[in-house]
């Protein structure tokens, strides 16, 4: 993991002092609320329906056990004893007191954490694949590049007041678990024929009101030029992005209106001014960052274990968990374990302070004191010995963290929705729960197989509904909460925006609608076909007919 040096620490301390003073000026009336608003947003602080919400950055999803214990402490001491993992690998506290936020930031700084640029019209937390560094199918570890981007984007003086928020994702694995193509800038790590590292650069992707898949602006950007090229894209966007209409201010609209070819020309022309200049990355800097992400002290192990194999044969719950939540590791004798935070009856992505402490202990015992946060709102222990799996499973079960739902229908991505968020048109959490209750049988879920179901409580699409195989969007219909359903979305390498099925549904109709959709798939699928494959083959009509036939 990256460790701060004196420079990083000093900048964080400077920021806390700055925000403490801004908060003081606001509370004593020296700073108007319209002036305080963008300042507090750039420190992750929203004013929500019931209380302020503080969003803390988990840079590219990497978290140490020490940091997680600090988050647990903050949840207990400053909040109501729990917190929520978001779809951008951040964590949100829903009940802090405004006056206490500077103290929370000071506590976070003790463990090298912060809430910098987790909100507001600036460059947000850079995200990546949660299996970076341990995946057996990896082109290159994305984390050093993410850290380089984190430093470049932190307090970037030129880009603190962009037309709108700006999100960057980096992916170095074959399967894209970072939703890279629906980011303002998406970076796929590539190697050229000489084995040199570079990036395929996508621009103009995004969700929200107008979902767009990013377009390739450069097929291969040699690594040395990463930051100067990012600067060039941002500089064009900062000057030319629309500022007259909040809903048309994202870079995706600029790229669409300009056309990718013209936009590319502008960026490349701008780039010439800084290309090979002082911001060009050096081998020394990349090596320095890579040193923070070397392998832990792996043992030389066999890739089989008698006790684990035995339990696999005799314990069906263990076998289910192994099948869904445990993935192959690049190293023999190790496994990647996902802790699915989607137990029925608890809000997707929520974790109590006790569970946080518990998971922190597990990562100390089983996974080199580190863990990852996923954009699917789950946690990952990246380096567990195969022979430790039975013991880890027992421990997880005791805290309801062994739910074997990873990648199944009940592994629902959901925003906090109308229960918390003042932007939401409708609730999300009860919808997720109603669906989970309807499908609360592992064999049935397993039979349905790999599928994603994403729920957002409003157009802003924090729940990534556009890219769920099944997407659900809360809408407001004359003051009542309704839900629009879309099919066929994907956030993997084959990224696609879902297609709306038809008129929206009342809350209590949703479990039936989802069941009908699933039944159409089960009836029509060919052997081995996943939901998305069947959908892409048969199209939306068979689903439409069945779902709306029922209503007549």
């Amino acid at each position, binding site marked *: 993991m990256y460790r701060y040096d004196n420079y990083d620490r000093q900048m964080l301390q400077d920021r806390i002092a700055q925000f403490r003073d801004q908060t003081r000026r606001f509370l004593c009336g020296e700073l108007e609320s319209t002036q305080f608003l963008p*300042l507090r947003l750039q420190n992750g602080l929203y004013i929500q329906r019931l209380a302020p919400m503080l969003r803390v950055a988990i840079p590219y999803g990497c978290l140490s056990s020490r940091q997680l214990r600090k988050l647990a402490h903050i949840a207990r001491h400053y909040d109501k004893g729990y917190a929520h993992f978001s779809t951008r690998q951040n964590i949100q506290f829903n009940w802090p007191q405004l006056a206490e936020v500077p103290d929370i930031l000071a506590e976070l700084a003790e463990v090298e954490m912060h809430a910098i640029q987790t909100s507001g019209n600036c460059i947000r937390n850079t995200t990546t694949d949660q299996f970076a560094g341990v995946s057996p199918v990896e082109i290159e570890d994305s984390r050093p590049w993410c850290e380089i981007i984190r430093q470049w984007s932190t307090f*970037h003086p030129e880009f603190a*007041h962009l037309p709108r928020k700006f999100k960057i994702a980096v992916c170095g694995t074959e399967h894209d678990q970072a939703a890279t193509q629906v980011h303002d800038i998406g970076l796929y790590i590539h190697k050229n024929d000489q084995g040199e590292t570079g990036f395929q650069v996508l621009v103009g992707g995004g969700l929200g009101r107008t979902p767009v898949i990013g377009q390739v602006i450069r097929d291969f950007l040699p690594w040395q030029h990463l930051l100067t090229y990012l600067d060039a894209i941002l500089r064009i966007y900062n000057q030319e992005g629309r500022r007259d209409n909040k809903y048309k201010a994202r870079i995706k609209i600029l790229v669409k209106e300009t056309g990718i070819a013209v936009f590319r020309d502008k960026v490349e022309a701008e780039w010439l001014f800084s290309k090979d200049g002082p911001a060009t990355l050096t081998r020394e800097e990349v090596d320095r960052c890579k040193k923070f992400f070397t392998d832990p002290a792996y043992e030389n192990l066999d890739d089989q274990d008698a006790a684990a194999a035995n339990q696999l044969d005799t314990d069906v719950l263990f076998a289910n968990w192994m099948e869904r939540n445990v993935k192959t590791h690049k190293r023999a004798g190790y496994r990647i374990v996902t802790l699915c935070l989607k137990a029925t009856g608890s809000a997707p992505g929520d974790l109590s302070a006790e569970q946080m402490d518990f998971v922190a202990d597990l990562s100390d015992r089983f996974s080199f004191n580190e863990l990852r946060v996923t954009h699917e709102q789950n946690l990952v222990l990246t380096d567990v010995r195969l022979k430790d799996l039975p013991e880890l499973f027992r421990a997880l079960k005791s805290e309801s963290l062994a739910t074997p739902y990873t990648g199944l229908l009940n592994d629902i991505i959901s925003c906090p929705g109308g229960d918390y968020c003042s932007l939401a048109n409708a609730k999300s959490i009860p919808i997720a729960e109603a669906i989970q209750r309807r499908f609360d049988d592992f064999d049935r879920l397993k039979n349905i197989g790999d599928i994603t179901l994403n729920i957002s409580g409003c157009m802003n699409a924090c729940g990534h509904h556009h890219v769920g195989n099944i997407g659900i969007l809360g809408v407001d219909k004359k003051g009542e909460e309704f839900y629009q359903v879309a099919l066929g979305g994907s956030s993997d390498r084959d990224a696609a925006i879902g297609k709306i099925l038809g008129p929206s549904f009342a809350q209590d109709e949703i479990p039936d609608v989802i069941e009908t959709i699933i039944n159409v798939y089960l009836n029509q699928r060919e052997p081995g076909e996943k939901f998305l494959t069947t959908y892409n083959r048969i199209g939306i009509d068979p689903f439409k007919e069945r779902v709306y036939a029922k209503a007549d």
Partner: protein
Amino acid sequence: MPRLIDTSGTELVNEWVKLEKDSDLVTALACTADKLLVPLELWQNHEEDLRKSGKEIGVWLDSDQQAAAIAADLERLKLVALNFPGFTDGRSYSTANNLRRHYHYTGEIRAIGDVLRDQLFYMRRCGFSTFDLKDTVKLEEARTALGDFKDSYQSTIEQPAPLFRRRLQP
């Protein structure tokens, strides 16, 4: 009373009289001040007359006007002012940057408009040299704000070497 400071926080006497956006040539020539800060449109339409007036001329750009518009004139301009219609309109940061980097402008770049204390550090980093503070800003606080951060990661106009090039040095 608006105040003008430089990057060190020193208060300066503002000798320039700023003309509003729709000002015409007659108003400009009738002005008794020796130093006139004129809007881009006036400069573009009456450059010849303005130069013949014997006054010193500076040009100010609004946030939707780019550095390229005055690129050819920069050698003759002692002052370019960049407007912030609202402090959340961040376009002028890039304009300042472009004036310095694209056109190697070495004269004064002044921040005008909604110039508040919490943006001063970033403005300074982007190449602004003077700040025409909004009258609600306390002078002492503005001075503090110019030094809100002791260092920064990026390559900027003020410090072209990014931290990663300096960090390696003992």
